[in-house]
C-alpha cells in the first residue's frame, strides 16, 4: 500500500505538487492520470526519495522509502525508461539491478523472458533500443526483485498495441496476486482499461479520485422521450433537475432506474434511457480544462 499524505513540492515560487493526498491499495491498480506537467512525475520522484518534498510524506506499507533495507525487493520502480547508460547492454543493466538486490543470476534471464526481450536484443547496447524496448527493460528492472508494490511512470509510452495489451495483463495479474500497482499516464484510454482506482491530477492538485466505477457513474443519465417536456415536469416535481441538450436529449444526475420509474408513472413513452457514461475522456477534459495546455479542446 502506498500512502501519500499532503505532499507539496515547491520550486521557488512555483508549486509543482500542491497538497496531494491519496492511497494506492493492495490488490488494485491505481491510475495516476493528468495532463503533461501536472505533477505526476514529481509526486512519483518524491515517493522514492529522488526529490525532497517541501511538505508532507509518502509511506509504503507504513514505512518511508529510504528506510527500506533493500528497496528493490519491496518496491519496483520505473520512472523513465530512457534514463539508462546508453553504452550498457540490456542484460548488463538487469545484471546490475540483480547484483544490487543480491538476487540469483538466473533472475536476469527469467526477466528478459518475462518482458520478451530476445537474447540477441539483450546483448545490444541500450543506445540502439527503441522506446518500446527500453520500456520493457525498465519494467524488467522494476519486476526483478518480485516486489509487492510497483510504481511506474508512463510505462505504456512507446509500446505497440500488443505490448500495451501484454502490460495490461501483467499489471492485472500483479494486482490479482495482492500487489499494489500505481501507474501514471496522460493517456485516458490506458488508465480507463487498466485501472481499478483513479487519481486525477491537474496543475499539481488532485481534481478527482475514486474507484473507476464511481467516477464513471457520477455522470448520471441520458434520456429521450416522445414528450420530453412532460418528463422534465414530472422529474422537476420530484426535485430532479436536468438539462436539455441540443440534440434533444435530457441529461440528469439521477439514476436511470429512477428516471425510468418516473417516466412510467407520468405515462411518458421513452425512446432512449441509458447511463451517461461519457467515459473518462469528457471528465478528464472537463476537470482539467482550466489546467491543461490545449484548453480549447473541452
Amino acid at each position, binding site marked *: 500500500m502506498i500512502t501519500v499524505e499532503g505532499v507539496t513540492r515547491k520550486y521557488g515560487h512555483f508549486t509543482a505538487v500542491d497538497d496531494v493526498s491519496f492511497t494506492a491499495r493492495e490488490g488494485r491498480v491505481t491510475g495516476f492520470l493528468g495532463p503533461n506537467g501536472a505533477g505526476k512525475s514529481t509526486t512519483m520522484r518524491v515517493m522514492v526519495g529522488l526529490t525532497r518534498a517541501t511538505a508532507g510524506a509518502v509511506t509504503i506499507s507504513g514505512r518511508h522509502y529510504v528506510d527500506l533495507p533493500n528497496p528493490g*525487493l519491496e518496491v519496483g520502480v520505473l520512472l523513465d525508461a530512457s534514463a*539508462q547508460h546508453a553504452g550498457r547492454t540490456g542484460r548488463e543493466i538487469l545484471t546490475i*539491478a540483480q547484483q544490487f538486490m543480491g538476487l540469483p543470476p538466473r533472475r536476469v534471464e527469467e526477466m528478459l523472458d518475462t518482458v520478451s526481450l530476445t537474447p540477441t536484443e539483450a546483448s545490444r547496447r541500450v543506445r540502439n533500443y527503441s522506446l518500446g524496448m527500453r520500456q520493457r527493460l525498465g519494467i524488467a*528492472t522494476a519486476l526483478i526483485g518480485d516486489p509487492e508494490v510497483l510504481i511506474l511512470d508512463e510505462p505504456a509510452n512507446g509500446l505497440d498495441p500488443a505490448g500495451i495489451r501484454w502490460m495490461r495483463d501483467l499489471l492485472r495479474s*500483479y494486482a490479482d*496476486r495482492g500487489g499494489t500497482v500505481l501507474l501514471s499516464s496522460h493517456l485516458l484510454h490506458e488508465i480507463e482499461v487498466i485501472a481499478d482506482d483513479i487519481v486525477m491530477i491537474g496543475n499539481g492538485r488532485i481534481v478527482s479520485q475514486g474507484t473507476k466505477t464511481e467516477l464513471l457513474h457520477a455522470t448520471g443519465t441520458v434520456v429521450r422521450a416522445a414528450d420530453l417536456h412532460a418528463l422534465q415536469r414530472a422529474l422537476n416535481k420530484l426535485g430532479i433537475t436536468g438539462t436539455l441538450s441540443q440534440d434533444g436529449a435530457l441529461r440528469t444526475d439521477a439514476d436511470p432506474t429512477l428516471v425510468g420509474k418516473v417516466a412510467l408513472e407520468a405515462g411518458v413513452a421513452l425512446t432512449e434511457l441509458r447511463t451517461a457514461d461519457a467515459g473518462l475522456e469528457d471528465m478528464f477534459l472537463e476537470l482539467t480544462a482550466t489546467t491543461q495546455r490545449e484548453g480549447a479542446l473541452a
Partner: protein
Amino acid sequence: MSTIATEGFHTAVPVIHRVPLARITKVELRKMLDTRSGFWLLASIAITALLATGAVILWAPNAELTYSTFVSAIGFPMAVLLPLVAILSVTSEWSQRSGLTTFTLIPHRHRIITAKLISSVIVGVVSVLLAFAIGALGNLLNAALTSAPLVWDVSQTDFWYFLLGSVLGLLIGFMLGILIRASSGAIAAYFVYSFLLPTIFLVLANNQTWFKDLQPWVDVTYAQGFLFTFDGALTGEQWANIAVTGVIWLVLPLAVGLGFVTRAEVK
C-alpha cells in the same frame, strides 16, 4: 510472453537485510568496466604504461635508464587518466541519467558515493601496482637488451609517496565529479585544475618574487609534485604544503559538492 508466478510474493523471506557496502562497491567497480568507454579508459592505463616503457628503452639516455625513470614515464599518462576514471564514475549517473535507477535501488546517496570512492581508489591502487610491475619488467628487459647496468633506485618510501600522490590526483578528479556532476564540465574543470592553473602559477612564480615563496602553499599540483620526485623523505614543510593545498583545493570543494549531491534532485 510468459506471465509472472501466480501465487504470493517473497514475503516468505522473513527479514530483508540492508544491502551491504561491500556489495555496492562490487557493483560500482563492475560499472566502471561494463561500457566500452569505461573498459577502454581502464585498458588505456595499461596500454600507455607499455608504450611509455617502450619509449624509455628506445629513447632515454643510457645514464638515466633506471627503475625510477621507467616508473615516472609510466606514471605521467596514468596521472592524467586516473582522475578521469574517478570523474566518469560519478558524473555518468547524472550525464547518462542512470542515477535514477541507482539512487532508487540504494536510496542513501552517501552509500553510493562511498562505494564509488572505494572502487575508484581500488582502481588507483591496482594501477599504481601495475605501473611498478611494468616498470620493473621494462628495467629488466632493458638490462637484458643492452649492456647497461641494472639500477633499482626506488625505495619503499618512494613507492608509498608515488601511491599517495596518485590517489590524491584521483581524488581531485572524484571531487570535481561530485562538485560538477556533468562529464564534460568536470573533465574541462580537471584540465583547468591540472594544466592551466599550474602554468599560471609557474609564470607568476617566475615573474613575481613575492609569489615564489607562496607557490608551494597555493599550488596543489606543485605541492603534490614532491611525492613524485624519487628523492627520499619529504620535509615537514613539504608535508605542510601538501596538507594546506589539499584542504584548499580538495577537501573544501569536496565538502561543498557532497552537500549538493545529497540534496540535489535526481531527474
